């Protein structure tokens, strides 16, 4: 009888354990510390997307358990949702200015219909003319994420 009761108790305790929060590593490379302190031993690194269970919390820190290791990391290195893959629009980007120029006549009539006057557009154009060439320069000159993390850690 006592054995059966303990069996039931274990099932409930098991269910309780399942309530521990599941999270995912958000940072590209998350350092796991032995203690909730950044001067503690660094015991492992977990990669973005790895599933962990949050088993304890202490202010800035979260204690996580993965299939490889149990240890502490800053709360901002994990998220409740599984990280998405990179999304880019650059392969199918549309320069809206060019598009607008191609359809200048249509634009003019639609703008007029909506009360956006020629003088109003000139004012905006003078103040905030977009520079897509400069933007493309920014988009071309990027650095590798892993290389950048290494640079930070130097």
């Amino acid at each position: 009888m006592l054995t059966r009761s303990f069996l039931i108790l274990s099932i409930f305790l098991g269910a309780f354990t399942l309530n521990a929060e599941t999270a995912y590593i958000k940072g590209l490379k998350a350092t796991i510390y032995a203690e909730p302190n950044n001067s503690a031993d660094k015991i492992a690194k977990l990669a973005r997307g790895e599933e962990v269970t949050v088993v304890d919390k202490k202010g800035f820190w979260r204690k996580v358990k993965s299939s490889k290791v149990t240890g502490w990391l800053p709360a901002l290195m994990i998220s409740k949702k599984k990280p998405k893959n990179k999304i880019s629009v650059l392969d199918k980007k549309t320069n809206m200015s060019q598009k607008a120029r191609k359809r200048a006549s249509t634009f003019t009539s639609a703008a007029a219909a909506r009360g956006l006057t020629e003088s109003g557009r000139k004012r905006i154009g003078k103040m905030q003319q977009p520079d897509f060439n400069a933007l493309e320069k920014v988009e071309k000159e990027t650095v590798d994420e892993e290389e950048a993390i290494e640079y930070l850690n130097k």
Partner: protein
Amino acid sequence: MKILLTTLIISIASFNAYSVQSSFRTRAPQLKKSDYTDSDIEAEIKFGRNLAARILGRYALVSDEKAQEYVRLIGTGIAAQIGRPELKFYFGIIKTKDVNAYACPGGYIFITQGAIEKMNNEAELAGVLAHEITHINSRHVVKQINLKAKEGGLGSITGGASASVRVALEQVLDNAMKALFEKGVEKEDEFESDRVATETLINLGYNWKKYVQYINNLKYSIKSGEGEVLSKTHPTPSERVQMIKDSVKKLEIANYTGKNNKTRFRRNVKF
């Protein structure tokens, strides 16, 4: 013994049921809030590109390639660790004496030459970039212009080529420019960005106190007129400093120290 065991089991069962319900209540709105589709995110990036192009229309990029590369390295490293993983982040230094930095939805970040000139070390630069990354992570500008990033809000003005769509996009871009250069985002959003920036610095091994020092020194830029936009769009430096100090105290991380990387900063930034 049997009664004791039964009571224990019932207690655990009740606690479990409560715990499941309460965690569901806590999580449900968060899940809904962050449940953005790939199309929502694409629309956010397209909108941000157009806003970034406008900023670059107003201010040219600084021609110092060494400094640009340095900012890119620091910014990309921070974004890889705390930025939204689905976004690619871009960084640039823009030519203006005005002391400020701008975050456009979708991952475009610009810091002014004036802001960098006021800095003394890498910890300060890392703090400002982490602050801007947090604005993008939390979609603060999109929230400020009161346009939903999902459910067709942004998608409806970035996804079409018709004249009416173009007009709508121009109008929303005007509002976003106003948010960046005149009105700012919510005070609470600025505080959140400062709080996360400080935690990021600690996470990356930087001296968070240098970032606080930089914010504190902004009062001199505001006084001299170089921080005009900043004064219109941000809480006062003293409010920001106090909030950060309260936050690190609450998290019990106020005594953490770290690197400044002053030499590396000086080697890469000559202006």
